[in-house]
């Protein structure tokens, strides 16, 4: 029942499991047999070990620079997520707010638990299938990135909104598309051919979003500085005709 000196008694040697030689380190044990220590030495080492432990903790107390706490609601303006952070799903839009997504269902198939529900419609002008509604269930999304991996049109991305707490579970089902209508590719193709562009654009119907990167966007919360970010602006209702 001696004191185990963790630094000294580490032994390294080679053993075999089966026929494979393996270098092992053997856990230190308390000295026994010939090396065993006297009772006084044991008591001295034991008491010393207590003080060594106390030295570690007091070392942190007297050095306030070791405090690593980030004060979340207060540092909200400066808090930055990593670029690849999987916060919330959103559709990539170009500068005219046209989306890349054409409603091809690949992400819906790839999604392991049905968190993405896509409904399609046929455009009356160019008679192609296009996205009618892109629903994303944040309440069941597992952030596995399978949808982004499966997307052939580079239409999805992650935003860094992690503040999504709500009082009502129903608010966690988001409509990601601002409008139902042709993707940017179809519009560009029509523009190139100069073929019924105006008509095509007129088929876009706005889709009201009730979710978004921050459900409480722009609202004031006690103790929380109001947040005005790019996300909130993105989330404003669409400007299409």
């Amino acid at each position, binding site marked *: 029942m001696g004191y185990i000196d963790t630094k000294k008694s580490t032994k390294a040697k080679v053993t075999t499991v089966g026929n494979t030689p393996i270098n092992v380190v053997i856990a230190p044990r308390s000295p026994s047999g010939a090396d065993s220590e006297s009772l006084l030495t044991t008591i001295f080492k034991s008491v010393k070990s207590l003080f060594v432990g106390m030295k570690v903790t007091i070392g942190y107390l007297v050095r306030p620079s070791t405090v690593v706490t*980030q004060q979340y609601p207060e540092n909200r303006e400066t808090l930055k997520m990593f670029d690849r952070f999987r916060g919330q799903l959103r559709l990539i839009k170009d500068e005219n707010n046209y989306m890349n997504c054409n409603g091809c269902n690949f992400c819906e198939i790839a999604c392991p638990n049905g968190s993405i529900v896509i409904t399609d419609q046929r455009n009356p002008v160019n008679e192609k299938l296009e996205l009618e509604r892109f629903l994303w*269930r944040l309440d069941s999304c597992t952030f596995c990135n399978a949808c982004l991996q499966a997307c052939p049109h580079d239409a999805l991305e992650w935003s860094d909104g*992690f503040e999504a*707490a*709500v009082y009502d579970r129903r608010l966690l089902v988001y409509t990601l598309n601002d409008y139902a209508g042709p993707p940017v590719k179809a519009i560009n193709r029509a523009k190139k051919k100069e073929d019924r562009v105006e008509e095509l654009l007129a088929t876009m119907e706005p889709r009201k979003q009730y979710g*978004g990167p921050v459900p409480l966007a722009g609202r004031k919360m006690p103790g929380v500085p109001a947040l005005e970010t790019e996300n909130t602006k993105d989330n404003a209702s669409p400007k299409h005709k």
Partner: protein
Amino acid sequence: MGLITEKFPEHIEKMPGGSFMLTRMDQVMNLARSNSLWPLTFGTSCCAIEMMMATGASRHDIARFGAEVARPSPRQADLIIIAGTIVKRMAPRLRTLYEQMAEPRYVIATGACTISGGPFIYNSYTTIRGADEIIPVDVYVPGCPPRPEGLFYGLLTLQRMIKEGETVRKPGIRKKPVFSALPPDISMKEIEEQMKAVLEKDSEVDVEKTRKGLTWPTGI
């Protein structure tokens, strides 16, 4: 309500300026409540690690909100952070834990599994699809698992609810600011219509049922 405040408001209100005092008292009491949320040490799976990250890790430190006093006994806890999947076998225990807690008690559901069943919605024979089928949930924090900051945001959301919430005059009746989270040009009716279309497949999450209140899933 507690020992003192049971008969309190009736006597106060008769006094001159009593209603002003009561309002002030509400503010002070709710402030105290919202800043002293002692969580129950309850976690079932992955979200519990991130919850420990929030409560335990020095980087995030839930102690700043006065909520690091994690109580192992439900009698002394104010807040239950459901972290992780709830399965059929656990559901009655969760219910018991909730019933053992003293009023006022609050519930935060973190993570996809707790809110809706998450990755285990389909083809699972045990997973409860949403902890709100077992106990009433005040705040939902989505994520799988949510970041500690996300959990703090949920805590702040809960604090806001508490501060607007219960009054001394009507103990036990809590105002829940649900609709304040909606953007101005959208009505709840529109949401419900859209939701129904989506959730038709998922018969367990019935919008009508959720509104009426607590229901027990079949088979428990």
